[in-house]
């Protein structure tokens, strides 16, 4: 596979050759930040369009098709609308926390976004606890949601926020445990190493039954983590109007909206990286020429393609199933997913210890 670190190294050396070290670092940081934000925003816009089109297809409709060819510019129009909308200031809210909440949510999702590996060497940072970092920062989001619900001084948002808190804390366990299962299998927490270990065969296929169980649980828990249907209780529109972000308007609402879609990408991206080999092409051991052809497709496309395909499944869930009730949601996690997950982890440890894997 083409190694992107060649380009980044070259750029680093080029800048270093005529600039002092501190300026190089600053410029690189700015470049990375701008690039990250750009990709973040564009992906969110794509996801909004993607979900609307998919949902329309499920519902025998056409979806957006008026703005631009095939409605492609619809999300851009929506974004501009969101940007120029008035930020309605409310009287009886805790102004500081109310304003802080959307930033917490979006920062959490951006931080998690930053460690995703896009291709060989195309990664902002690859450190030895990468996957741990990803789980840690993505949990900050729940703080923002709780703050949003609490500071709005509204009973609906409060109920939404508390539901969200209960849900996130519970499902974090399942996400963590299924990630842990795969970490045990890969033998490393570094994202680069995990992807590299799937060089020959993706973990979903090489990890036997535990990997498949972990994959299914991860998808369920990940859907719940992103507050999407059938687990969209925090913002159950028919119960709580819009849940924790009922009182938000303009770009503050836009932040929640963006973060929700990007979390969808992050969850499916992480699933792709843990189970479907990240940016690794599809390889079948022994089929050399087939593997060679697969290698021609760039890693970035592999990664985004896998993430989008997994997002399709999650979106499919949302537009098919009715919503669970809060007690059913929690009992699903604590009575079913968690015990299965713990058992699965032990199973995986046994497989690794006795070396009975491909």
């Amino acid at each position, binding site marked *: 596979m083409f190694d992107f670190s060649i380009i980044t190294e070259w750029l680093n050396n080029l800048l270093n050759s005529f600039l002092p070290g501190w300026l190089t670092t600053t410029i690189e940081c700015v470049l990375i930040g701008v690039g990250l934000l750009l990709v973040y925003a564009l992906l969110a816009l794509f996801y909004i369009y993607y979900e609307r089109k998919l949902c329309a297809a499920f*519902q025998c409709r056409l979806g957006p098709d008026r703005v631009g060819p095939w409605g492609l510019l619809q999300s851009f129009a929506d974004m501009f609308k969101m940007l120029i909308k008035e930020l309605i200031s409310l009287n009886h809210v805790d102004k500081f926390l109310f304003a802080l909440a959307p930033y917490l949510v979006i920062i959490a999702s951006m931080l998690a976004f930053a460690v995703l590996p896009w291709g060989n060497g195309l990664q902002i940072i690859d450190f030895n606890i990468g996957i741990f970092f990803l789980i840690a920062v993505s949990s900050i989001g729940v703080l923002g949601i709780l703050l949003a619900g609490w500071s709005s001084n509204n*009973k609906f948002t409060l109920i939404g926020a508390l539901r969200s808190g209960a849900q996130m804390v519970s499902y974090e366990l399942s996400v963590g445990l299924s990630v842990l299962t795969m970490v045990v299998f890969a033998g490393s927490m570094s994202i680069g190493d995990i992807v590299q270990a799937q060089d020959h065969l993706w973990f979903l296929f090489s990890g036997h039954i535990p990997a498949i169980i972990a994959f299914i649980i991860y998808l369920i828990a990940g859907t719940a983590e992103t507050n999407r249907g059938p687990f969209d*209780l925090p913002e159950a529109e028919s119960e709580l*109007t819009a849940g924790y972000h009922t009182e938000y308007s303009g770009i503050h609402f836009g932040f929640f909206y963006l973060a929700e879609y990007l979390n969808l990408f992050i969850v499916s991206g992480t699933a792709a990286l843990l189970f479907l080999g990240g940016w690794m092409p599809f390889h079948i051991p022994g089929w050399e020429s087939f593997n060679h052809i697969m290698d021609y497709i760039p890693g970035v496309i592999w990664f985004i393609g896998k993430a989008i395909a997994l997002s399709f499944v999650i979106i499919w869930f949302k*537009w098919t199933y*009715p919503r669970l*009730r809060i007690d*059913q949601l929690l009992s699903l996690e604590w009575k079913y997913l968690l015990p299965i997950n713990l058992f699965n982890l032990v199973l995986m440890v046994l497989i690794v210890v006795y070396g009975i894997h491909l």
Partner: protein
Amino acid sequence: MANIKDIVAERFSQASVEEGEIMMFDIPSEKVHEFAQFLRDEKELAFDYLVTIVGMDWGERLGCIYYLTSTEHKTHVAFKTSVEGREHPAIPSISDLWAIAGIFEREVYDFFGIIFLNNPDMRRLFLSVDWVGYPLRKDYDMNDKANEVSIENERQTDDTYEYTMKDGKIVKTEHAVFKPEDFVVNIGPQHPATHGVLRFRTAVDGETIKKIDVYMGYIHRGVEKLCETLAYPQTLHFMDRLDYFSAHNYHHGLCLCIEKAANIEVPLRAQYIRVIMDELSRIASHCLFIGTFCMDLGATTMLFYTLRVREQILDIMEKTCGARMTFNYDCIGGVMADLDPDFVKDVKDLLATLPANIKEYNKLFTGNVITKNRMIGVGHLSRKDAISWSVTGPSGRASGWACDVRKTDPYSIYPELDFEQVVMTEGDSYARFKCRVAEIEQSAHIIEQIIDKIPEGDYCAKVPKVLKLPEGRWFQLVEGCRGVFGIYIESDGSTKPYRLKIAPPCLPLAAVVDHITEGQKIADLITIGGSLDYIVPDIDR
């Protein structure tokens, strides 16, 4: 009928009888509670279903007419009572005998100012707390200066009032609706799940519901009062605007009542058309129910699948009636216009696509694990409670109460038709849902039988241009899409009704919510509300 008269005469010698289509007793006001209890509890009478309470202003006297039905013997009876004096008219309450009576009495109090003694909740039902006057009294001041539109916040009360008789004087006591420590969430009046402008003040403990106070009247339009100022054919238009999904059925009901009073023979063709239209509306209405109910549960996609069928029905109706809602199609003596030439073909197309659609609904939604978890055992309503709360229609039948008027008191050509009354016994939300799905099939079955047999002939009988009804009172029940729809007309011989009372099915449906949600979760309130399927304009009128 004579039997009822004898049994009553044995116990209540003072009750005078008025024979008519429904036997009516005249009871002195102080005996009302005793008499009602006797009618309900006497084995041979067993009038356990309170259809409606009609408030009346007879000029000199104010009073009420109670319509009762025995679910066991399939008999009807009515009794009326009246009191003198317009200052503080008071009648003993029967709210301890029938759960729904409390709400019916509040409505009468709201419109006529009759106080029901010992009813624990004597607030106004539809009008705001500071409303001046009682609008359905004949001497009501219609001047808009008396009740100006308020620009203040909505006035509301946190107390209920109870009036009791002590030493010959009426004493008023206040009870707080909620305890001070209750966490009260306002669900509505603007809320996606209340299906209209209805408000539930919900006391919750975490996610568990402790108590609900239903607040109605946001779209009260005074239809009954308006009808008193209009000629009979003009009153028909309002029927479209109550339960807009059973527009045809409601029209049918009022037409039947007026035709019965004026002795008008409806041509057979018109009767066939009316029945087909009724059943088409029922299919459309139940389809919409399935869609919106699924949406309440979070399954948005189902809405589009069910609207597909409804759309097809609306297209059929548009071709014939010229409208997609508020059809105003049935008229006194028949229907407004003849069927569209394509009608039969279109209906057959619809019938051909229905089974596949229903199969798809069941596949996508009914059999789903989450769906079952959300609905089975949620909002259980027993048969006894369903009768006590007058919960009719599919919701009542899901509780095991065979209350379909098309079977119990058949009208039009229904006696000749072969169809089954869908009755289930579980009484939970799932049963209410399945009951409606099954009713779609039954309605389709009815249409199938008669679509090829629509007789030739007039679609409307000759009706005098100025229609006067003879003096008297008539009561007619029809099966709307959501339950039993009753029409009471009292005529003084003029061209306008002296009193036109609408007994809607949705008022009990909304009133029963508090009873069946207690101890359930907030999300269950949405499920239960959705499965009862009330329509707010029908509640408020």
